[in-house]
């Protein structure tokens, strides 16, 4: 398996007709994109907007952020299992409009117990240095769904609409020469070119069974993960659309964009290319809902890393809220006891800012912990004239001035490794 990313850097995004790429300027045709989005009968209308880095504007609640990417014809399916047949992702050439994003806004709040406004895209002011998303040119997509849909049906509609628009934009690059082409070097447990280097694997949780997934919830190749055991994935599958966030996860700091640009996988690739390590592969797993579930998943994940990938070391990341910390730590403990060294990345759970509240596990073997922060960072953001939201109520809620928690700025408390916000012990 070998993925080539054909990169087309985007320096500006404008409305126009038809949708096309002019040099580094991406032109999006709202009428054309509207027709595409409205092919979903659950959507009765859709609005589009454009935001650029540094513009004093705020958009939310953000359901998802996606990098526009499209497969070269014959190279496979875009978002296989969701937008098309579940062909293997990660093969052939995928065109990337780097510097651009498709950001879907919701008409509903993600989780009222935490925040009515959900995660917000802030394009100016103090928060921008903490989120990569502030540096992108966003095509904002605001689907309006018909009345009476169940929550997960609405979320599914958002997911599909966002992916479709992202692919349609990137298809404008298919007949253009890419500024650069990056082909990832071959990886895998039997890869002979990196023999003798430390064998390193990645284990990523892609769902947490704190909530049962909807029957048609697309997560892994369009499947909802119900009943799944940990599975080996080639790193290129993650980068090329095999995995998307679960539907009700838009509070968890996981966006499609950082599966496509997975910070952990890309860093492992970087070191593989530098011949620092032998990147042997990845495991996708889920966090269980009870102890049997947890034991099954953790053991299977550890066994795959030990016997199939034959790794010397593994990095682990979690999904969702508090409970997945237990699965993360148990998997790492099993690996350590098999002689495989581990480092884990966790999210900030210390609400009283005490170290004693910082970890949800107490496992001596799990001694290498990267700690994402965010629980005591708030920004005072000003009133802005330009607020982009799906409803007048959200426009009013987001207008400011207000104090906004770090976790409510999309990208700041990311769980895929993109965050630079650390909690420091003092």
């Amino acid at each position, binding site marked *: 398996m070998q993925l080539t990313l054909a990169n087309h850097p985007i320096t500006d995004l404008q409305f126009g007709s038809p949708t096309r790429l002019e040099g580094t300027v991406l032109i999006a045709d709202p009428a054309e994109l509207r027709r595409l989005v409205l092919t979903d009968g659950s959507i009765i209308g859709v609005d589009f907007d454009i935001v650029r880095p540094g513009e004093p504007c705020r958009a939310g609640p953000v359901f998802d952020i996606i990098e526009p990417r499209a497969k070269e014809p014959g190279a496979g399916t875009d978002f296989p299992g969701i937008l098309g047949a579940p062909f293997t992702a990660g093969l052939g050439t995928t065109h990337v409009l780097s510097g651009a994003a498709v950001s879907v806004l919701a008409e509903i709040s993600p989780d009222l*117990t935490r925040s009515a406004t959900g995660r917000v895209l802030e394009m100016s002011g103090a928060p921008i240095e903490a989120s990569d998303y502030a540096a992108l040119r966003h095509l904002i997509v605001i689907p309006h769904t018909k009345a009476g849909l169940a929550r997960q049906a609405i979320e599914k509609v958002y997911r599909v609409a966002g992916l479709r628009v992202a692919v349609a934009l990137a298809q404008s690059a298919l007949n253009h020469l890419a500024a650069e082409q990056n082909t990832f070097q071959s990886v895998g447990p039997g890869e002979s070119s990196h023999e003798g280097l430390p064998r390193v694997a990645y284990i990523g949780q892609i769902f947490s069974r704190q909530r049962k997934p909807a029957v048609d919830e697309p997560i892994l190749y369009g499947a909802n993960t119900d009943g799944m055991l940990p599975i080996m994935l080639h790193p290129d599958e993650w980068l090329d659309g095999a995995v998307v966030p679960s539907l009700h996860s838009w509070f968890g700091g996981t966006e499609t964009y950082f599966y496509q640009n997975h910070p952990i996988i890309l860093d492992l690739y970087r070191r593989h290319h530098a011949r620092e390590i032998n990147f042997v592969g990845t495991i996708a797993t889920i966090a269980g809902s009870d102890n049997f579930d947890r034991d099954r998943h953790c053991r299977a994940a550890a066994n795959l890393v030990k016997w199939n990938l034959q790794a010397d070391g593994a990095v682990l990341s979690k999904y969702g809220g508090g409970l997945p910390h237990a699965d993360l730590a148990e998997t790492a403990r099993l690996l350590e006891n098999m002689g495989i060294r581990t480092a884990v990345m966790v999210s900030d759970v210390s609400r009283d800012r005490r170290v004693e509240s*910082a970890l949800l596990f107490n496992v001596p073997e799990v001694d290498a*912990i990267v700690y994402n922060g965010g629980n*005591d*960072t708030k920004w005072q953001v000003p009133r802005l004239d330009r607020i982009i939201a799906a409803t007048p109520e959200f426009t009013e809620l987001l207008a400011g001035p207000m104090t906004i928690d770090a976790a409510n700025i999309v990208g700041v408390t990311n769980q895929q490794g993109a965050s630079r916000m*650390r909690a420091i012990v003092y």
Partner: protein
Amino acid sequence: MQIAHYLNQFFGGVGAEEHAAMGLEIRDGAVGPGKVLESSLDGARVALTFVCGDNYAVERQDELTAAVLKKLREVNVDLFFAGPCFDAGRYGMAAGAIGRAVQAELGIPVVTAMSEENPGVDLYRDSLYIIDSGTNVTKLRDVVAKMAALGKKLSASEPIGLPAEEGYLRRGWLRDQLVEKKAAIRLVDMLLTKMKGEAFESEMPATSFAPVPIPAAVSDLSKAKVMLITDGGLVPKGNPDRIEGTAATRWGSYNVEGRDDLRAEDYEVSHGGYDTRFVQEDPDRLVPLDAMREMEKNGIIGKLHNEFISTCGRSNPLSNTRRLGREIAEKIKRDGVDAVILTST
């Protein structure tokens, strides 16, 4: 800048252990280590020095603290220092207690210094800046210089650096900081360092907790009064106690007298951390009143207490849950409950 300083009888120049019983003496000006403080702080003056015997200080800690506070209310002081105490346990305990009171009640910045093993450290590290003095008294000049530097920053409300930068003992708190490297890179860095067998620094130390002793078994369940408690957030419709769905600060007790099961229409769930649909369908799945009533009828338990208690455990910090636990324990003791079944989610 006006400084006040607390010393024990030894550093106050009175004498060693044989003077440990001496009461509080308040002297004008600097004494012993206070003179080093003055020389480390340009233009600062030690206005007052409190000297007290170690035994007196721990035996009559409240009295001593009150006397120090009373005196400080009469004068204008910008900074308060205590010690350095090195590994002197009683001295550390007194310095910590007085320091915490001065800081909390008078709003005067406080710096003390102890060795990591001093029992005062565990008690006061979360409230005070305690410079790591080590145990070697001959290092007094260096230690006092660090105390002075930190005190100066505190009184100027300057940002305080990390323990290693300022020389204080880790306080057990977290603060956010934007760092240059993304978490992914730090994660792989840490793993590779660990794999090489080199020293690596975890971003979070392991926490250790004192074990909770298992209480004695209920001797005869058929005579026991049993109660149901949950942290799964089940509340009567309308959530009368406004129990928060995240990091709840409140708990409620709800009467179930005369009922054999909990009906969906009477309850809701205030909890955002698990899939609540199944409990919402049938609250007995979380608070098994139906099963407990059967056990009551069959004589397996003596009596089911006529209330259940509920709170929400989601993302709840320990400082909060300890209080909730204490309050709940007090109530169930009052109610004469013999055994509790805790259901969690």
